[in-house]
């Protein structure tokens, strides 16, 4: 019968570490090894022959999954299925729920999503925005050993590192606003995540704005100006004129055309999503 299996003589060496230490050792410096989390991003690349690795790391049995709490600090293991995040508060919960469907979310891993490449002009890695907004740090292994660093620093090097866990302090409020078509399997064209930490600082981040998820410092600065951190939200008299219109966010991104949406369209929508996120967080004050 016809077979689709790989020619055994060039088959990839598959490693199945059974613990974090084994995974780190197998990953080494990350060169020449393909990391497989759930497989939802990587398997089609193998099937369509766009990836032909010499070594592959199957991570799911390395004990890297699970959500733990230490006070308000949440730590999520790298291979935790995305479905386990769905009930968490915004922005993370709604962001996770917006990804694909329940079957894919149950197979896909949090770190796999964070480490997604840019993928044929289609944005992936929706969770990057939500975790940037909550000020997450990533513990990873690779060249130079294990280290923990802010997610924004990790993202630029994500393809060279083995993510082990993601940690963040639970925000006091959060919101997620995504633009996508009403179909389970469309890629999110654009999404904004926001979170307000205990001291009142607002963090905003976006995905679908080219490359990978980014913070929106100009939009954050605009909010901070109008609503200084030290003031308790509940006591600040607000009128429509006080609200930022979200256009400052356009300074923080280089928008692009792709099959999902044009740069022009994204430029129209980004400020709207910023406003929605800010409004939703205000209303939960």
């Amino acid at each position, binding site marked *: *019968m*016809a*077979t*689709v*299996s*790989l*020619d055994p003589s*060039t088959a990839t060496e598959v490693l199945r570490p059974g613990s974090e230490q084994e995974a780190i050792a197998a990953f080494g410096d990350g060169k020449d090894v393909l990391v497989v989390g759930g497989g939802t991003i990587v398997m089609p690349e193998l099937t*369509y*022959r766009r990836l032909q690795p010499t070594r592959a790391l199957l991570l799911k049995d390395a004990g890297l999954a699970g959500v733990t709490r230490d006070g308000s600090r949440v730590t999520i293991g790298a291979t935790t299925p995305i479905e386990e995040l769905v009930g968490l508060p915004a922005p993370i919960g709604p962001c996770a729920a917006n990804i694909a469907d329940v079957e894919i979310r149950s197979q896909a891993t949090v770190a796999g999503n964070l480490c997604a490449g840019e993928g044929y002009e289609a944005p992936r890695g929706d969770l990057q925005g939500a975790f940037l907004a909550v000020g997450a740090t990533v513990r990873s292994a690779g060249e130079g050993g294990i280290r923990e660093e802010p997610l924004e620093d990790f993202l630029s090097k994500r393809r060279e590192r083995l993510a082990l866990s993601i940690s963040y302090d639970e925000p006091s409020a959060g919101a997620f606003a995504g633009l996508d078509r009403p179909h389970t399997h469309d890629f999110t064209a654009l999404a904004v995540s926001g979170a307000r930490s205990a001291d009142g600082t607002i963090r905003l981040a976006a995905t679908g704005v080219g490359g990978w998820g980014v913070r929106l410092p100009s939009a954050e600065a605009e909010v901070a100006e109008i609503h200084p951190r030290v003031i308790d939200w509940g006591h600040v008299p607000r009128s429509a004129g006080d609200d930022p219109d979200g256009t400052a966010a356009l300074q923080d991104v280089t928008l692009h055309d792709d099959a999902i949406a044009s740069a022009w369209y994204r430029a129209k929508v980004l400020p709207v999503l910023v406003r929605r996120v800010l409004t939703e967080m205000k209303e939960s004050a």
Partner: protein
Amino acid sequence: MKVVGARIPRYDGVAHVTGRTTYVDDVRVPGTLWVKALRSPHHHAGITKLDTSKAEAMDGVHAVITWQDVPLLVYGHLSALGIPADEPLLAKDDARYMGQPIALVAAENEDLAAEAVSRIDVEFEERPALTDVRQAFDAGAPEAHHEGNWYKHFEDEMDRRQIRKGDIEWAFDNADTIVQGVYRPAAIEHCPVETQVCQVVPEPSGRLTIYSCTQALYFSMGVVAAHLQVPLNKLKVVGGTTGGGFGGKNDTATETVCSLLAMKSGRPVKWRWTREEEFLCSSTRAPWHMEIADAVTKDGWILGRKMLTLHDAGAYSRFSPYGVTKHSFHHTGAYTIPNLQFDGYVVYTNRVPTTSMRGFGVTSISFAVETHMSRVADVLGIDPYEIRLKNANRIGDTSPNGIVYTDPSTVSTIQVIAESTGHELPAEYRTMTNEPREGEWRPEHLVAQVGNPEEH
């Protein structure tokens, strides 16, 4: 009637729900080779070199075919309807759409087949591509097709499907206003859950057994026999089980080349398109460009219609002239318009050839006609239900191509819609029937063109 209205269980219902339905991809024949295609990466290019020797030399590759292996390279699938052949089974001198198949490989497994394709030595000379039907008629437009940019073989070698009825000049001279509209439905992917797939087994008897997902078994059989130049009794086509087609599995897209590979290798072969091939290279419902101008009176009579249709056939004719012909017959929709000027062109572009899809040619015109009726109603300030009822087909009216309506259902359908949406109709519209026109529903401008059934 014995079947309509009967409650009969699906004959394949039990098989579907137990996973026992055998689709083409489920057929298991030991020794089957996997097929992969070399496809044009360019929208439009001359093929200046094609050397398959390195692919053929690979261990595990059992056959490679190009245009040279095809006994009858160019065969018109609808030549019986007068549509001449224009499309080579495999590209010879040039590639006219991105994805056009140039060569195929049959190998021991999918990976080997793909590797062999990458070792085919092919060189191109890119040419300008035509992708917008509106530019097809410009001097200096890229030449998408060897016969020029539009089909020229309607009856009497006309270069368009043309319908003329009544006196269009009179209609436009006597109109109170002209209402224009442009309608451009986009291409649509059939996207069945089962992609194109075919399995061919060469039998010791010399026959070929072809497991096909075609929607048109006898039609495909004829196409294969013609390309292979073999009598029909050499082919045993096993079909009737399709994982969705919707008009996209009429093109006989896989059966002939798989037959050639099976014959050349002496082994069973299977070609299953990937979902990416399905999206990028399979034929679609055509995009259309339609322009309508209606000559209307202020009380809502449509005196005449001028229409121009540009149908995007893609790189080759396939069934497009037939689709445009059907389209032309329906360009007044469910309504009677006595004076008509219709011109429909089959335009070639350097895009994937388009094909049938549910309501081929008619779905597009229905969209345009209905939208336009609402536009006319809007311009005149007339209720959109009433304007439709006023101009509705009645017994004795004729279609654009002269068919006499003996029992048209426009009136009753619109009345039912009005009722179910809670739209109040004035009494004379509520009680209207499809009986031959009389009185106020038979104005002068309709008298000459429409008559009673006995007159025809």
